[in-house]
């Protein structure tokens, strides 16, 4: 009797442990939701599922991209495929990591993915993305001047191949509140000629309107790429210096331009022309400036991107119908007013096809449809972005949107971030450098630290000092 009981226990334990071990093997039998044709229900013919991955910043189905995708897929003529949104809800930084992880495996890679041009080159070097040159060659729109030629640079990786079709871009400049300017006795049609004029305007505001933050620039590590691009690179490129020397293929780690750019940041903080550090060194700093301070009249000048007006639309995060009249958008001048007079950095997003996608041809057909003139226009107008298509840029409906024309005009002098796979890593060093200057480190010390860190990342053979 006793041994019989023990026998039962032994069998049960053995079964349990075996089942546990089976649980450890990958569940190959379960259908992945990533584009395998699913058997049709109720005898319908099988539909191919094309998954589209994009970033959901927390507003879910109310997001501009989500709504647009729904609309475009509803009108998509090819009914044999189903377009399935598979958004990733994440902060901007986490989105890139999550996408990279998803693209690594055939089981998780979507068929279409939205890529920031900033990470596109890295993902292309990693072999995650499909080069589109052959496909683009057969697409009339790509070759006939419908796309603004300069925008193709943003989706071309360092190997010279194109890895995505751009759908929006942005420019950067100085947003300013005309009401505050009037109150401080500054011109409502403000066109600063050099950095000194920008600083002087901020000084005047500090004196005349002491409750207002004179100028806001993102200066923290927590704001990530916004600190690198909207603040540091706008300043650095305005001195005539660049991050990366294309001729020699080396990163510039020390130069007068870097010092000048950092000195601007230092001046803003030393003279207390900027926001309180507790607000600006915070991950939410960008939203605090664009969604709270600027609309509430607590901020006079903001060095930010053209997209912030997307917040002020009826469907945006901080509706503000008066923004059209209250806000002005001045070009960011070069440091001394030297040629070309003003500067802007351009970024933007593109649709790419992952190498691990199982439905590349169907995905490409959909991209062509979605990024044709009409559909692109709908997307940029609902999200407050700038178009990459020349035909949309001329459309009266597009140009009548406030600031669209002016922001598109700035793109003439637009610069792109270096299409280098080390850029994302160098960018985090830029953020560290800018934050350290904002918190009191001298520009020279911060630059030395930057030089050390960048050398470590790219190797001593790939740096140059000027």
């Amino acid at each position: 009797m006793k041994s019989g009981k023990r026998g039962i226990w032994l069998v049960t334990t053995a079964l349990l442990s075996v089942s546990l071990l089976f649980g450890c093997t990958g569940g190959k039998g379960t259908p992945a939701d990533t584009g395998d044709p699913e058997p049709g229900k109720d005898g319908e013919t099988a539909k191919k599922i094309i998954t589209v991955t994009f970033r959901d910043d927390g507003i879910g189905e109310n997001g501009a991209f989500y709504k647009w995708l729904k609309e475009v897929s509803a009108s998509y003529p090819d009914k044999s495929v189903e377009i399935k949104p598979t958004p990733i809800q994440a902060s901007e930084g986490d989105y890139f990591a999550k996408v990279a992880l998803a693209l690594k495996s055939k089981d998780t890679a979507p068929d279409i993915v939205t890529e920031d041009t900033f990470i596109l080159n890295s993902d292309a070097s990693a072999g995650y993305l499909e080069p589109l040159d052959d496909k683009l060659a057969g697409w009339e729109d790509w070759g006939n001047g419908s796309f603004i030629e300069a925008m193709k640079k943003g989706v071309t990786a360092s190997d010279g191949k194109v890895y995505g079709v751009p759908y929006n871009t942005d420019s950067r400049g100085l947003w300013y509140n005309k009401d505050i300017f009037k109150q401080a006795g500054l011109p409502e049609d403000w066109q600063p000629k050099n950095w000194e004029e920008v600083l002087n305007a901020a000084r005047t505001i500090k004196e005349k309107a002491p409750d207002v933050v004179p100028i806001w620039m993102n200066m923290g590590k927590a704001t990530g790429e916004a600190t690198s691009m909207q603040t540091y690179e706008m300043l650095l490129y305005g001195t005539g210096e660049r991050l990366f020397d294309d001729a020699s293929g080396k990163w510039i780690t020390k130069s007068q331009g870097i010092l000048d750019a950092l000195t601007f940041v230092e001046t803003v903080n030393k003279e207390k022309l900027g926001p309180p550090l507790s607000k600006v060194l915070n991950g939410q700093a960008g939203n605090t400036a664009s969604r709270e301070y600027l609309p509430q009249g607590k901020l006079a000048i903001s060095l930010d991107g053209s997209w912030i007006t997307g917040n002020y639309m009826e469907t945006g995060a901080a509706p503000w119908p008066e923004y059209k009249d209250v806000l002005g958008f001045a070009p960011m001048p070069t440091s001394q007013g030297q040629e070309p007079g003003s500067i802007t950095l351009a970024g933007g997003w593109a649709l790419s096809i992952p190498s691990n996608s199982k439905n590349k041809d169907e995905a490409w057909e959909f991209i062509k449809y979605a990024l044709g003139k009409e559909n692109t226009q709908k997307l940029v107008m609902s999200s407050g972005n700038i178009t990459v298509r020349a035909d949309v840029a001329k459309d009266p409906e597009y140009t009548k949107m406030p600031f669209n024309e002016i922001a598109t005009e700035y793109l003439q002098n637009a610069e792109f971030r270096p299409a280098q796979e080390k850029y994302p890593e160098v960018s985090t060093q830029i953020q560290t450098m800018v934050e350290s200057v904002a918190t009191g480190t001298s520009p020279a010390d911060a630059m030395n630290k930057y030089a050390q860190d960048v050398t470590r990342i790219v190797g001593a053979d790939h740096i140059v000092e000027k």
Partner: protein
Amino acid sequence: MSSLSVDVYPKRRKTYTWLFFLLPSIAIMLVFFIYPILLTFFYSFTNLALTGEAARELKFIGLDNYTRMFQDPTVRISIWNTLVFLIGSAVIGQQVLGFLIALLMKQRNKTFRRVIGTIVLAGWVTPEIVCALCLYSFFGDEGTLNAIITFFGFSEVTWLFTVPMLTIILANIWHGTAFSMLVFQAALDDVPNEIEEAAVVDGASKWKIFTRIIIPYIKSTITTNMMLVTLQTLGVFGLIYAMTGGGPGNSTTTLPIFMYNQAFVNYQLGYGTAISLLLLLIGIVLSLLYIRSMKE
């Protein structure tokens, strides 16, 4: 003891049975613990990356990740921050506070113990991320703490910015003290009343009873608890990440935060794994120290 059991049960059968019954747990340990650790160890010698050229081909780069780690000034800052956080919130905070609460509750009436116990436990049962959000809104610029102090006429303090390390230490104390309290409560209940009474009869003062009877009696519990709390605190990530993100600057960047930044913000998984091994090493060294002190 062991010779006795060998005599009672046939030796060979016993060996096989214990092995058999341990098999499931050994399998689980191998798959979910040993294998990942070995894999981490392997990856720490490679250039494994999330994106970029390195993601295409995995290369063996020898000790590069480790030499980089020892040259990186942020690693030194992170180790320092980890130790400050550990000593402040675990060794001093949770351990001492938990012990004090347990001691004060000893032999009090049931209602008192229940009420206080529940309040302290509230912090512990709250999930880490919820706890982080609660304390973020408590210490935030427009948070509860500032509302209280401005009510009394003081000016606002930007807690998370001016004293970030203190805020995360307090948060972790609030979150974790209950664990130590429970452990010490159980230990203190085991101290026999007779011995204490005998000491009182012999004229021992309260302080003498505390240092000569209670502390020696629960010494092994103190060490065990110290070890558990230390290991828990070394791995704290969500709480710090949600409250300060490791900032401002690097002032609250502990090793887990630094590891995350390297692996998922800079996409250098290989370097990240090397840092995780450093963290593991620190945990092992501290555990060994505690175990050794227990033997003495």
